[in-house]
């Protein structure tokens, strides 16, 4: 293994990912890159994103071909300093033994269910560590919204990501469709799994749920990290919410999903199909409508949690995409007086996916 020759391989995003398709190279042979620069766009079953350089140097060889599917860990490119001779790189490649394609390695089923007063809740558990993170998705989402984050943080923390009632594979009905009712679900989840206290990470409506949980049970919440959070202001893109609920075909829903991202190209067919499959489960549209009517009554956010959360004194990081079209970044900005605020440029409403590296660093920093 050469120190000077750096391998760019097909990454593993989420424990179920087995392969990915290269859709576009963003660099060519000869491009100088720094750590974190995007090299290539990859599409998987669940998600589309970019592979970032983990080393600085010059892109010396591009091996992966566009529109081709490669198993995880396949060598896609070589980065090396300009001073490394081509012959050395050739020799490296000649001697290179690709890693064995793990057929069905540890088919670790990370998903389980737990029965709470509201009904059956699905959740995923990853990693181990003495600190616990609980990830809470937003309106219309599910625990897989956090795939880039759970995989990036599993070596440091014990991680739970759950499907809220009405979402994913959890029960499709609410006892109480308000933020308070959802906070009760989080607390009963923690009770059922004997989690005394945890760091809550919430996206959008999930951010508001995290804050509400902290307000209701401050002793159970060590910190809160939010992405594009609700609960910090009044504005909500109701056209998106209504469009999401009302759409029943790919053509109808695509433009709404595109509003979630800075780069509309991240909306893959698989993502659309997965969301439609969820929406076609019995009772989902009615559940989403009930939730929207409660949490976004009259087209505005129903609750502002700023004062109540401030009073808890619990540490918080509020992350927001500068180009968020669903909830304006200004909401998180206004949290400066009690939270660490990070506004990410070139980022939409799905900051935890669009800028997963920064996101994970911020989550880890807040939870530590």
């Amino acid at each position, binding site marked *: 293994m050469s120190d000077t020759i750096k391998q760019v391989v097909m990454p593993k995003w989420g424990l179920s990912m087995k392969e990915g398709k290269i859709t576009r190279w963003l660099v060519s042979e000869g491009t100088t890159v720094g750590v974190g620069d995007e090299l290539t766009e990859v599409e998987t079953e669940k998600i589309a994103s970019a592979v970032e350089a983990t080393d600085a140097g010059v892109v010396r060889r591009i091996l992966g071909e566009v529109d081709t599917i490669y198993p995880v860990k396949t060598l896609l490119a070589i980065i090396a300093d300009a001073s490394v001779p081509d012959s050395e790189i050739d020799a490296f490649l000649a001697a290179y033994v690709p890693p064995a394609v793990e057929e069905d390695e540890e088919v670790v089923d990370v998903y389980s269910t737990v029965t709470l007063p509201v009904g059956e809740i699905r959740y995923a558990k990853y990693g181990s560590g003495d600190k616990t993170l609980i990830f809470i998705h937003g309106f219309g989402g599910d625990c897989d919204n956090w795939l880039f984050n759970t995989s990036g943080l599993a070596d440091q923390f014990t991680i739970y990501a759950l499907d809220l009632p009405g979402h994913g594979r959890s029960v499709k009905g609410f006892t109480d469709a308000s933020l308070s009712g959802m906070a009760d679900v989080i607390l009963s989840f923690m009770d059922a799994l004997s989690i005394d206290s945890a760091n809550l990470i919430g996206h959008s409506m999930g951010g508001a749920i995290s804050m509400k949980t902290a307000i209701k049970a401050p002793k159970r919440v060590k910190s809160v990290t939010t992405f594009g959070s609700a609960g910090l202001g009044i504005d909500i893109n109701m056209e998106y919410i209504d469009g999401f609920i009302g759409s029943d075909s790919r053509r109808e829903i695509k433009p709404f999903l595109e509003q979630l991202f800075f780069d509309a190209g991240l909306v893959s067919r698989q993502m659309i199909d997965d969301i439609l*499959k969820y929406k076609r489960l019995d009772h989902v549209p009615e559940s989403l409508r009930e939730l929207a009517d409660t949490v976004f009554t009259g087209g505005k956010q129903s609750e502002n949690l700023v004062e109540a959360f401030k009073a808890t004194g619990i540490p918080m990081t509020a992350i927001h995409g500068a180009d968020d079209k669903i909830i304006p970044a200004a909401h998180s900005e206004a949290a400066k007086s009690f939270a660490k605020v990070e506004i990410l440029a070139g980022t939409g409403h799905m900051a935890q996916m669009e800028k997963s590296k920064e996101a994970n660093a911020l989550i880890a920093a807040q939870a530590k």
Partner: protein
Amino acid sequence: MARNLSMKDAINEALDLEMRRDPTVIIMGEDIAGGAGGQGEEDAWGGVLGVTKGLIGKYGAHRVMDTPLSESAYIGAAIGAAACGLRPVAELMFLDFMGVCFDQIFNQAAKFKYMFGGKAQTPVVIRGMVGAGFRAAAQHSQMLTPLFTHIPGLKVVCPSNAYDAKGLLIQSIRDNDPVIFCEHKNLYASMADVPAEAYTIPFGEAAIPREGKHVTIVAYGLMVHRALEAAETLAKEKIDVEVIDLRTLSPIDMDTVIESVEKTGRLIAVDEANPRCSIAADVIANVSENAFKALKSAPKAITAPHTPVPFTPALEDLYIPSAAQIVDAVRNQMK
């Protein structure tokens, strides 16, 4: 978590969920429970391949009705009962048996609404096994989808996997028109991730199990799996195949097919039916008419031959379109 269910169990689950939800849903067919009138067990078979097992225990013999060997009578009865407000799901054990009851299906059920000026509805589902590969020979192995697709007033559904089978059967039962629901006997054992809850899939929406930009392969039922196999092989040759699974043949999602051909410029239609007036022929005619300028090469139909289904395994295996045939056809188009 993946909740892996076979297509057979997914179909059973769809029937179970709908019978639980709607008391007007009844099922009938030959041996769908089995053991009727005998001294042995009730629910002796649960359908010839066990697809309807367990339902008579949950819902009773007045909703899970074994029938005498009388397709024209009981399929007609299911249709008449549907016109009178029940929602029957009647089984034609093998869709090949439609010959003895086709009048009730194509002259009665399909035409009531039209002939009676809109003042009737016939929410019946007729489900039956289709397809070859079981060595069941000529009269138990056909893919007769084109015959039903041709008839105005009928809807025709043919899922390729367990997830689609459950959603499409639930949709069929909730639909208010007569639906022919085709179950490929060679896919009963195929597994997929199937949610426990009820869900629907709209008719007239094709699925795209694989995206690609060099060639469009349109298929349904078992042929979707052959197309996907072919695509894997072709990917190694850097040929990027898009596979479209029609899922429903009437209504048919030609918009998705045309959009795909406008992207790839090449079309192969794979169909287990015989070639004359097949679904493949229909798709190719439609694309030729509506997307001619986009085509870079002549569209190709890959179907069974113009023969009955042979019995002996070696011949039956030749009868059913293979992944190799599809690969060859694509390579030819790419030249």
